[in-house]
């Protein structure tokens, strides 16, 4: 904490005397979720993004940038309001930052039509990957289904035959289970949709035990996942039925809150802090040093989004007047991703490797993720064929 305060102080002092004389910076607008329970997601995306800027001395791709951030409070209309202010008041040509699909669906289709680039560091709703894709929309994280697909494939490979599925009753929940089933071929022991924001899962767990599955796949982001995992362990189920899920319930900050109840759980992700490549090592070390915590996948996505933008700025010398040139530069994705190799598919969504991570307890007692296996190589999303640009 003190580290961070000193750092911020130093930074603001630097800003006050620093780049005033230089050329006018490119403004990047970040609409993200900082309040509400999900506020830590936006915080990590912002911190990852800011880290990339700070490492470049206030520049991305050698071009001075200014990041303006505002909190959407997870409300679609608020997100839209902020987008409008960024575009009209701050003359922003590049937007990024949105955490949730519903905010993205309210903001993105409109702004990309108006000739603004949107780089998604998190939400990847299927519509924007398929029929609703746009030449000015790039997703640098994943299409929503990806992290569920990788778990489906893994569970299938491991020979599980009777899996119990659980997700909240909303579109992302349905998509999650559909993504899982796209690659899992065995029987479904049960499929349960819970209330969005539900906190007590005792009833669902009793039903689950009675169904006698040989594995459980669940998608319950945020606090819902903490509740579920704690209660799953308390019911003694973690000793008999293995659990699988996407990385959203197993990021490094949530794991602190779940504690031992998560140990042994396998989860699907496109990134992990122990991925062995130089860009990632540098990122994780720097992030830990500045913010005094291990980065989450959200932070890595924010960091990659910044470097992607930087690569395009470098290619055009900081000019956004030629949109086609800037877009072509983005499409090349010529940056060192913390994921190792990274490229865009025809629908501007990632083609990337996907992994299964295991939650472990280190000898020092920290609960953290470790890469267990690479399941997909150069995986693309299922909607690319529907996209016509």
């Amino acid at each position: 904490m003190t580290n961070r305060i000193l750092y911020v102080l130093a930074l603001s002092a630097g800003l006050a005397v620093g780049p005033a004389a230089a050329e006018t910076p490119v403004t990047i607008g970040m609409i993200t979720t900082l309040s509400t329970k999900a506020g830590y997601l936006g915080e990590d995306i912002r911190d990852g993004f800011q880290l990339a800027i700070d490492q470049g001395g206030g520049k991305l791709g050698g071009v001075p940038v200014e990041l303006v951030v505002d909190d959407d409070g997870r409300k679609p209309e608020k997100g839209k309001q902020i987008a409008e202010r960024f575009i009209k008041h701050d003359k922003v040509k590049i937007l990024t930052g949105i955490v949730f699909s519903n905010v993205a669906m309210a903001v993105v289709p409109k702004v990309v039509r108006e000739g603004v680039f949107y780089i998604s560091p998190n939400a990847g709703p299927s519509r924007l990957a398929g029929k609703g894709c746009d030449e000015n929309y790039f997703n640098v994280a994943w299409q929503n289904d990806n992290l569920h697909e990788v778990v489906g494939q893994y569970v299938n490979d491991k020979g599980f035959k009777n899996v119990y599925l659980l997700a909240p009753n909303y579109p992302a929940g349905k998509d999650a289970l559909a993504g899982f089933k796209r690659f899992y071929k065995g029987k479904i022991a049960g499929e349960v949709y819970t209330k969005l924001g539900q906190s007590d899962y005792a009833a669902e767990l009793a039903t689950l035990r009675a169904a006698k599955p040989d594995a459980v796949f669940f998608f319950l982001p945020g606090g819902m996942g903490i509740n579920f995992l704690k209660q799953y362990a308390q019911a003694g189920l973690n000793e008999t039925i293995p659990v699988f899920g996407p990385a959203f319930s197993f990021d490094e900050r949530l794991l602190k809150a779940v504690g031992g109840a998560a140990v042994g759980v396998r989860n699907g992700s496109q990134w992990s802090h122990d991925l062995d490549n130089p860009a990632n090592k540098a990122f994780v070390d720097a992030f830990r040093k500045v913010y005094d915590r291990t980065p989450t996948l959200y932070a890595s996505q924010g960091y990659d989004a910044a470097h992607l933008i930087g690569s395009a700025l470098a290619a055009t010398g900081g000019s956004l007047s030629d949109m086609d040139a800037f877009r072509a530069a983005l499409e090349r994705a010529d940056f060192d991703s913390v994921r190792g190799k990274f490229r865009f598919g025809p629908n501007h969504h990632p083609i990337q490797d996907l992994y299964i991570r295991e939650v472990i307890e280190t000898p020092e007692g920290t609960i953290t993720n470790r890469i267990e296996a690479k399941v997909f190589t150069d995986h693309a999303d299922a909607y690319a064929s529907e996209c016509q640009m």
Partner: protein
Amino acid sequence: MLGMGLVALVALPPAMNALGETYLVSLFSRILIYALVAVSLDLILGYGGMVSLGHAAFFGIGGYVVGILAFHSYEAEPLFTWPFIFEGTENGLLTLPLAMLVSAFFALIIGFFSLRTTGMHFIMITLAFAQMLYYFSVSLEAYGGDDGLSLYARNQLPGINLGDDDSFYYLCLGILVIYLYVSHRLVNSRFGRVIQGVRENERRMQALGFATYRYKLVCFTIAGAGAGLAGALIANQTEFVSPGLMHWTRSGEILVMVLLGGMGTLFGPVLGAIVLLLLEEVLAIYTEHWMVLLGPFLVVVVLFAKRGLYGLLTGRKP
């Protein structure tokens, strides 16, 4: 003072455009829409003494009427084909009245049951109905469920290009002024005096021979229609609808606008909407923890401005 306020609101778009702050025009469109829904809540709250914590339900219904009609129009797929063919539409002359009608209908049903209760129980039963509608909209998979529904464009009105932010702003302002005028006439009519009499002492009004339940139900329905109209406008303003419009916290926010501005006055809620939304916007610029300032501000207003901001400004009793 009111005249000055109106002049300021009319002059806002050209002034902002001259200053290059065009985004403020659309921010103020949103504020005016919230002012409209706050005024409609004040009709039942301030004048009728009915504290509803489910007003956002009608706001959301109005939004969904616009959203669903636009969706069917865009997909060129009739909404239903039996007993007659009902096509989607993006014509504002149809969508806005329909939004009011449908919201009024829901208000009538909800009011029919809720108005049997009073006080705290009324607060909670309106909340219950709103929550039911909220979860219902979450389960509307065809219309995006919790993700909501994007409109491709704003509705059309003859002679006005709603896609233009200034025109849209003037439409909102015009509707708000008309609604204020109608409300003003309403509360000063015989009907309005009965309603206010019910607020002061329902038993006495009954003893005087008034069927108070019916008066309250009519008032509740009119307020629902107003909220539906505001919902239809917000759907057009953001070109998006989602269940979040109906969440109980939204009802709470609208309630806060009315109380902050001063209930039982027509201009209080307008002031409340302006102050609350501008505060959100401004405080957020200074600190990401803006709510830690907004909270105590509300407490201070309650403690020291007993009749809300409007009362504080005018010194007038509500």
